[in-house]
């Protein structure tokens, strides 16, 4: 499913977090939002998810205007920066949460929930960890549980906020590979926010460079390297 935003602006208190941002994500694309901290990339991700209301502009999912739809109606999967796992629930309950809170008419029975959760545990390679609490998992494991939880509701688009930010270098690399592999298999339209160039260039089909609430340039990693359009992009990529 494609995702697009048109002329999105958003102000916090006085300073603009997003200023007239337009962007289209193709179906099945893996797109990186890259920029220094405070450049507005996370805000854009939250606007797409429905966690932040833009002051102006429009968000569309598959051509349908969802600007005024609630976060849940959009059916976006969101992986939070610090994972935001439910600390008091075990891994199984965390992943099952989205299914358990469905209205009774659409809620699967407990067998179906168990089946679905087990599939997801297999996908994230954490079978046998159902009963663990988030505090008993490593950073990389938490990250994968957060992903499985987001996937449980069969989202139309996957949004990841600094997915590897809190991990050490080795785990980071492994998870990167895993995510690329996962995306190649499912072709779920995905956006992730990062401040790490290598990560963006290695993983993403296209990279969007942000600074001070505006998009500086959009392109494939090769295009950006060969043809930076302004000084900011040039100096940002040089570092």
């Amino acid at each position, binding site marked *: 499913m494609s995702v697009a935003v048109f002329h999105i602006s958003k102000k916090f208190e006085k300073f603009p977090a997003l200023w007239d941002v337009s962007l289209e994500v193709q179906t099945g694309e893996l797109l990186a939002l890259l920029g220094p901290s405070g450049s507005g990339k996370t805000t854009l991700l939250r606007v797409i*998810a*429905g*966690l932040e209301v833009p002051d102006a502009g429009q968000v569309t999912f598959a051509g349908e205007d969802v600007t005024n739809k609630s*976060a*849940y109606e959009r059916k*976006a*999967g*969101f992986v*939070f*920066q*610090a994972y*935001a*796992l*439910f*600390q*008091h629930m075990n891994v199984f309950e965390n992943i099952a*949460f*989205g299914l358990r*809170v*469905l209205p009774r008419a659409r809620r699967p029975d407990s067998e179906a929930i168990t089946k679905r959760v087990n599939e997801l545990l297999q996908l994230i390679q954490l079978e046998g960890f159902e009963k663990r*609490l988030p*505090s008993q998992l490593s950073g990389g494991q938490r990250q994968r549980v957060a992903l499985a*939880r*987001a996937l*449980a*509701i069969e989202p139309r688009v996957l949004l990841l906020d600094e997915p590897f930010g*809190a991990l050490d270098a080795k785990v980071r690399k492994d998870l990167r590979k895993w995510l690329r592999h996962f995306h190649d298999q499912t072709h779920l339209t995905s956006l992730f926010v990062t401040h790490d160039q290598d990560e963006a260039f290695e993983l993403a089909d296209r990279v969007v460079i942000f600074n001070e609430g505006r998009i500086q340039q959009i392109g494939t990693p090769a295009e950006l390297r060969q043809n930076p359009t302004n000084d900011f992009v040039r100096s940002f990529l040089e570092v």
Partner: protein
Amino acid sequence: MRAATSEGRVAKYLLIAGLVGFISLFLIFPVIVIVIEALSSGISFYFSTLASPHSLNAIRLTLLTALAVVPMNTIFGVCAAWAITHFNFRGKSLLISLIEIPLWVSPVIGGLVFALIFGRQGWLGDWLYAHDIQVLYAYPGIVLGTAFVTFPFVARGLIPLMQSQGSAEEEAALILGANGWQIFWRVSFPKIKWGILYGMILCNARAMGEFGAVSVLAGSIEDRITIPLQIEQYYLDLDQGLPRAFALASVLLLLSVITLAIKIGLEWRRLALTHLVRPR
């Protein structure tokens, strides 16, 4: 050789001894005195005092008051903390300051304000008299005064706790399709239940022991006074009043010791919890 950043051994032990002495004299000694005085006329006198109609009435009214006040202030505390910690709105810091007013104001003022509304010469005095509704010197007045004095306890504990937890788990639940009740009961409540209990315990201790506000609102009509007021009544009674006053005071003392124990237990538990929440 001693480190340049610490006092000598002698100074250290003197300071510790000073603190132990101060706390023993001012904090522990009064507790012991209450127990000794309460039992000074014998165990049977002690229990007959507690079982007397005066004492039982006071205990009953105190329990009824706490039963009304603690839930009201708890619901308020949870609502106020939810609004303050999950949303931005104009006047938020004003609201936080207003919640703290009762901490700064004399408990007697907490009683006075309701006397000025519901008393015979109060704003609603004539109307209440005409309709034969008794607020002052009755249960409703005692509840209002106590609610005023104990008003901020739950909210004040919850606001920093919920602020430190942030809104991310609630947002995650929202995206996964949970509605308001589901978010609160399944995600937020388990995180804050010990904080709520902590606030309720403090609120309860203060509610049951409240004296100033209730002195104004309960008057001295015999069957409409709470434990602290009954203690005063006994105290003023020249005929064997003192041991009676101490006997009843020992009930409140027991309550405060239990409160302190639960409070310490919860603080330990809460430390453990925050440790769980922030593993890094």
